[in-house]
């Protein structure tokens, strides 16, 4: 992995496969043990810096850090010096003085994670930057799809709903296509970003397009980001035309949703309550994938630093790779 995880553009397909293999092999079953902890990041410090409300992302990052034995501190904007007017730069510099190894940041503005990365030596993980990106969500979605479908190449996925305001959609359009999936965006024109075709995804304005799909990826209707304009004539009309329910399933089609769901808006109550969606599998995957991200961001970069320092003699590394289990 690179030094930071800010965008799905930071990873190529090989990186994604390798990272998710780590999640599957090393971390998925950890939660089923009585002792749900490994000593891998003992002594490391993780700061979770959250400027937006979050349940699953913040709890899963906190749990992931703790289960890796790191010391985890949660800083919530509403109960910190941020409320006293401290800037993001000053908060970062302050936290950086504690020498954390990883800073996880969730912020309402695009580019906030990249901004934080400029002022700290820690590895920065973007846990959602406004309408920018949410790469760890994308990775756990890819993981959940792999668990369900195996090989993802050629799979057809519709991303349905409030694409305009969705960082999840942005990361998933990038990530799903890297995995060889065909992506179609399904939304009323007002909820599609201008020039979205440039990202390579197809566009449809009706749920009829779902007929052809293997996966339906539902987005949350982000009503809190609708205050600046009227994007929809009425919620009732949106529901009538774009709500996905059990009637849209069939042919092994699976439904994903990043949560939290708006029951009765983008997803029908019947679909939300049925076993036909992968929502809870996504939550479970989120923990394993975030553990893998923290583990790999530390070990990959540490190993790269050792190699760069020339401590690994030329030629030895390949032999070591082959014999790593034989020499201990």
């Amino acid at each position, binding site marked *: 992995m690179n030094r930071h995880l800010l965008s799905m553009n930071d990873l190529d397909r090989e990186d994604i496969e390798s990272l998710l293999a780590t999640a599957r092999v090393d971390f998925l079953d950890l939660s089923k043990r009585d002792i749900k902890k490994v*000593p891998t990041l003992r002594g490391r410090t993780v700061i979770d810096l959250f400027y937006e409300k979050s349940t699953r992302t913040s709890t899963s990052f906190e749990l992931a850090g703790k289960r890796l034995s790191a010391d985890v501190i949660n800083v919530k904007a509403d109960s910190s010096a941020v409320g006293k007017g401290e800037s993001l730069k000053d908060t970062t510099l302050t936290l950086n003085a504690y020498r954390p190894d990883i800073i996880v940041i969730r912020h309402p503005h695009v580019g906030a994670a990249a901004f934080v990365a400029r002022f700290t030596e820690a590895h920065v993980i973007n846990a959602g930057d406004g309408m920018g990106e949410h790469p760890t969500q994308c990775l756990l979605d890819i993981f959940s799809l792999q668990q369900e479908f195996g090989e993802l190449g050629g799979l057809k996925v519709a991303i349905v709903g409030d694409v305009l305001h969705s960082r999840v959609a942005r990361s998933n359009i990038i990530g799903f296509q890297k995995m060889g999936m065909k992506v179609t965006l399904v939304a009323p024109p007002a909820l599609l970003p201008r020039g979205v075709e440039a990202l390579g995804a197809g566009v449809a304005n009706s749920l009829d397009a779902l007929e052809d799909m293997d996966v339906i990826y539902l987005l949350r209707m982000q009503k809190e980001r609708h205050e600046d304009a009227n994007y929809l004539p009425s919620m009732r009309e949106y529901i009538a035309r774009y709500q996905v329910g059990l009637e849209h399933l069939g042919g092994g089609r699976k439904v994903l949703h990043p949560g939290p769901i708006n029951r009765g808006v983008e997803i029908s109550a019947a679909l939300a309550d049925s076993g036909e969606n992968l929502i809870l599998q996504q939550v479970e995957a989120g923990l394993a994938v975030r553990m893998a991200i923290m583990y790999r961001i530390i*070990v990959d970069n*540490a*190993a790269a630093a050792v190699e760069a320092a020339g*401590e690994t003699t030329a030629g030895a590394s390949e032999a070591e790779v082959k014999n*790593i*289990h034989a020499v201990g």
Partner: protein
Amino acid sequence: MSGVFVKTVVSADQLGRTIVRISHEILEKDQDPGQLALVGIHTRGAHLAHRLAKLIEQFTGREIAVGELDISLYRDDVAARGSLTVRSRLAQPEIKGTNLPFGIDDMTIVLVDDVLFTGRTIRAAIDALFDYGRPSCIQLAVLVDRGHRELPIRPDFVGKNLPTSQDERINVRLSEVDGKDEIVLEATREEVES
């Protein structure tokens, strides 16, 4: 002139006989097969554990619990070597993690590895085991003990003692992973005698 010196120190036949002997020694020491479990350390230790279990089953007519342990998350050099471990594991066609399909509480666990060197892998394996339960005792079986211990760890069952120098390398090859059984000594020498 420098060159790589390679020598087969244990042949396939010898290796087979050595494994049979270790299985007898385990049975001699641990007489209740019901309380016995073999846990192999990935990758080659796991294959050795399965071979030993099969032999013990033949001798006793009773099934022996076998598991596999991956110690990557318990290494003491996560920062420096962790990534190499990750990459080497991902290079394997079918990577597997820890698999202990039985409770280890109150069992006699025989850890199995191919080469015993510094002892650090075994330290990590013991730590990992304790996160799965509380065995009544842990023993260690290795195919090769090459010396150079850095921790106070000693094997209970040894296939072959092969005194080596630090810059030599012992490669255990097993048919399950390498296509054939043998133990090879590799050394880089400044001068190769003719």
